[in-house]
């Protein structure tokens, strides 16, 4: 089973994280799935290797969750990394995806924290909705990923890994 994101949900997610970016005056906001794959991002990511960032964020979150269990907590839903110039605020959404806000001194931790709470509620609803859709459609073929897609992918694989 795949984690499928359809157009409408994607635009709702983007609207929410763009609003969060503006309200917090953050540098960028990223949404990542727990397996380490970037779902979407907004803001200035020109200096960021987003693929590596997504993978490391998911690993960071997974490792911290295990730390939580070792001290008797179910999990830590929120992480905060403070640097000299830039900071990361990381929030688990619907137990499924990870929201990361990258920000600097143009805003404050307090503001980011408050605004993330609002965004979390909205994103929770969207992600839950996506999960329900995936469950309902689980026996149906994925739109667009037909035999032709798989054949072409296999021939690309032959070419790339020869």
């Amino acid at each position, binding site marked *: 089973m795949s984690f499928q*994101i359809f157009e409408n949900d994607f635009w709702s997610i983007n609207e929410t994280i763009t609003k969060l970016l503006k309200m917090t005056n953050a540098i960028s906001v990223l949404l990542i799935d727990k397996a380490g*794959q970037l779902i979407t991002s907004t803001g200035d990511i020109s200096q960021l290797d987003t693929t590596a960032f997504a993978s490391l964020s998911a690993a960071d979150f997974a*490792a911290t969750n*295990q730390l939580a269990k070792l001290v008797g907590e179910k999990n830590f839903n929120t992480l905060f990394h403070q640097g000299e110039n830039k900071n990361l605020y990381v929030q688990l959404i619907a137990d499924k995806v990870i929201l990361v806000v990258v920000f600097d001194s143009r805003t404050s931790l307090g503001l980011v924290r408050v605004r993330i709470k609002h965004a979390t509620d909205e994103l929770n609803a969207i992600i839950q909705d996506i999960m329900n859709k995936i469950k309902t459609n689980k026996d149906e073929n*994925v739109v667009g990923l037909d035999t032709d897609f*798989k054949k*072409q*992918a296999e021939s*690309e694989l032959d070419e790339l890994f020869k």
Partner: protein
Amino acid sequence: MSLINYASREISCKIVYYGPGLGGKTTNIKYIYSKISPNAKGNLISLATELDRTLFFDFLPVNLGNIRGFKTRFHLYTVPGQVYYNASRKLILKGVDGIIFVADSQVERLEDNIDSLQNMLENLQEYNLNLASVPLVLQYNKRDLPNISTVDELENILNPQKLSSFEAVAVQGIGVFETLKAISKLVIRNLS
């Protein structure tokens, strides 16, 4: 669990190299990084100890290109092989779409291979996954060394289900792409 984004037209799949410590998982991924064309790969990330042993994972994104309008990517991960890093190994398996088990062909590593395979199945079980839901291929690495088990022996012990398996000398690149190609195709076929 692969990620299919219909709005941005992107597909990402996660492939994990599993196996005992010092078996050649990182060597596989480093060889791929060195040989694949620059526009088809991202940065290689290695979370390793000072002695270059994998501490958490290695990570390499590989772009397959545009397949019928979908930007298709594979994310390759290795796990740390040493027995005491199991907590980390389990985390890397989260959301896995396909596994390459890299076995060390040396006779004295046979037990380690068996233990690692068993450990992999137990860790998958914790995510309610098994070999019916996650494709697996095996790679018998270090075939150039003198004191190795025969392929028949390895097949009988490690691969009773007769899954695809490949002989390899990862340090020279032999068998590396064959193995990756095989698992990638299985992952694509398994997309749903």
